């Protein structure tokens, strides 16, 4: 009587969903035939298949690596925007409006919203979906909530893989939304081509906080709730800080910071044209010595009122401008390469760690070794050398004949 407790009951479904549905009810693991079917169903545009693939990615379910491998060749056409900011800055609401605006242009959209989970129970309430009111019932906006699940570093891999699934599915735009709280989240948002950082007005401390990590990754800064008091001040603070950032990076950019803090930045930057903040070809910064390309992207500061959609058009234009700059300057390929390099490294690290974990188990487990260290029979460095020895030998042997290029 219940759909849940009757696993064997149904493999038949209505004709619309073939492979994807069936994949859900079968229980055995492995079997890449089924995974291949699932990928085919995803490429055919079946929502359920896409949803299931993302679940497998999230769960690190058996076979997920094979699935992602199969998807890879179909990716590369979506442009990916990351939206980050402190809790309550209005990310979800803005993402909702952004998705609506993309839809109005006839583009399809995928959204991945990352929320923290409790480190104690692993549970989470994923509330970003509540704000997706503008796109209710529109299946061409594929919205997916993901929880951080406390897996350090793993989250960025899972997010990047989920983006690939949306990309392969054929989404024109993918938006990643995450709380800009820590290293983990910064990693996540790095999987995007363009990063928008949201800031609330009147939060001087907030802007200060941005210095640590988030300021560096933003391509576009959005002061949301710009109808609140103090919005102009926040815009000015941000501009000043961004100039400082440029100064740090190039050593000469400080000069660009001298255009003063005009108490009210609001309204002055209709389309980011204000002062020296123009996106492309900002002449003032053209003479940096250590930058080969003289058309660096200068981060923009925009204002929005997400709740009524004010400023969303400008944001869209700026995101497009950044995308165009990425393409024309060759930075898109650079970023992609960097991303894949990080991916490869990350996979290697976690795979190698798993390999070593097995080696540890074979040697009686880490606890026994720790006890030996505690008894001063040996020391951690010696243990590490010992455990690593077989692996190092293997790698060394393989290298003997070939050239060694990969060590750092």
């Amino acid at each position, binding site marked *: 009587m*219940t759909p849940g407790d009757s696993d064997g009951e149904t493999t038949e479904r209505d004709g*619309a969903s073939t492979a994807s549905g069936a994949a859900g009810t079968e229980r055995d693991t492995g079997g890449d035939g089924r995974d291949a079917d699932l990928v085919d169903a995803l490429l055919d545009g079946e929502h359920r298949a896409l949803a299931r693939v993302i679940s497998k990615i999230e769960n*690190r379910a058996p076979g997920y690596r094979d699935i992602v491998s199969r998807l890879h060749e179909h990716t590369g056409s979506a442009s990916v925007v990351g939206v980050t900011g402190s809790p309550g800055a209005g990310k979800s609401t803005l993402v909702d409006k952004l998705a609506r605006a993309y839809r109005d242009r006839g583009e399809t959209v995928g959204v991945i919203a990352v929320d923290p989970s409790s480190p104690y129970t692993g*549970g989470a309430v994923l509330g970003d979906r509540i704000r997706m009111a503008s796109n*209710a*019932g529109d299946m061409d906006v594929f919205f997916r909530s993901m929880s951080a699940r406390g897996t350090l570093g793993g989250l960025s891999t899972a997010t990047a893989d989920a983006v690939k699934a949306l990309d392969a599915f054929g989404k024109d735009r993918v938006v990643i939304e995450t709380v800009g709280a820590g290293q983990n989240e910064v990693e996540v948002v790095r999987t995007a081509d363009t990063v928008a950082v949201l800031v609330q007005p009147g939060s001087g401390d907030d802007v200060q906080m941005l210095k640590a990590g988030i300021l560096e990754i933003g391509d576009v800064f959005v002061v949301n709730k710009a109808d609140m008091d103090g919005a102009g001040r926040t815009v000015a603070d941000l501009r000043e800080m961004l100039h400082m950032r440029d100064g740090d990076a190039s050593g000469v950019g400080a000069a660009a910071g001298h255009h003063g803090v005009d108490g009210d930045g609001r309204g002055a930057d209709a389309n980011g044209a204000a002062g020296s903040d123009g996106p492309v070809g900002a002449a003032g910064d053209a003479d940096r010595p250590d930058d080969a390309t003289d058309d660096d992207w200068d981060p923009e500061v925009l204002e929005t009122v997400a709740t009524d959609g004010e400023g969303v058009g400008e944001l869209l234009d700026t995101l497009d401008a950044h995308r165009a700059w990425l393409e024309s300057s060759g930075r898109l390929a650079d970023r992609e390469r960097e991303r894949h390099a990080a991916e490869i490294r990350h996979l290697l690290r976690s795979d190698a760690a798993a390999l070593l974990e097995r080696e540890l188990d074979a040697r009686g487990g880490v606890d026994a070794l720790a006890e030996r260290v505690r008894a001063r029979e040996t020391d951690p460095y010696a243990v590490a050398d010992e455990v690593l020895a077989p692996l190092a030998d293997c790698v060394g042997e393989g290298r003997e004949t070939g050239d060694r290029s990969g060590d750092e």
Partner: protein
Amino acid sequence: MSTQEREERTVRCLIAKVGLDGHDRGAHVISRAFRDAGFEVVYSGLHRAPEEIVQAAVQEDVDVLGISILSGAHNTLVPKVIEGLEEYGAFDDTLILVGGIVPDEDREKLLEMGVAAVFGPGTPMSETVEFVREHAPDRR
């Protein structure tokens, strides 16, 4: 860490408020209880249409769909949700629960439709959590 990842699959739930009633206290309480039980809970927000619930359940790939209705409109709203889930091939492996005030004669009808359980007022939270643990579809 990696072994733990492999062994424990997180149960995903959608707690949905469908239709016009604006009483979401129960939905909030159950969301928190599920969260504290270690589930991942997607909360729909108030006043959702059946299509929105279907969209959310399909896209979020939830194991459990908990529909909270206090308006008495369950006989029209629940079938619409179920139809939508069927359309996307999501009906058979989603555990559907209904919470709220449902007369006994309607309860039977809902169960026949494919609702796994109906939880009325005063149901202990632990009972609902336990039910989900036992019946959440295994769908690897």
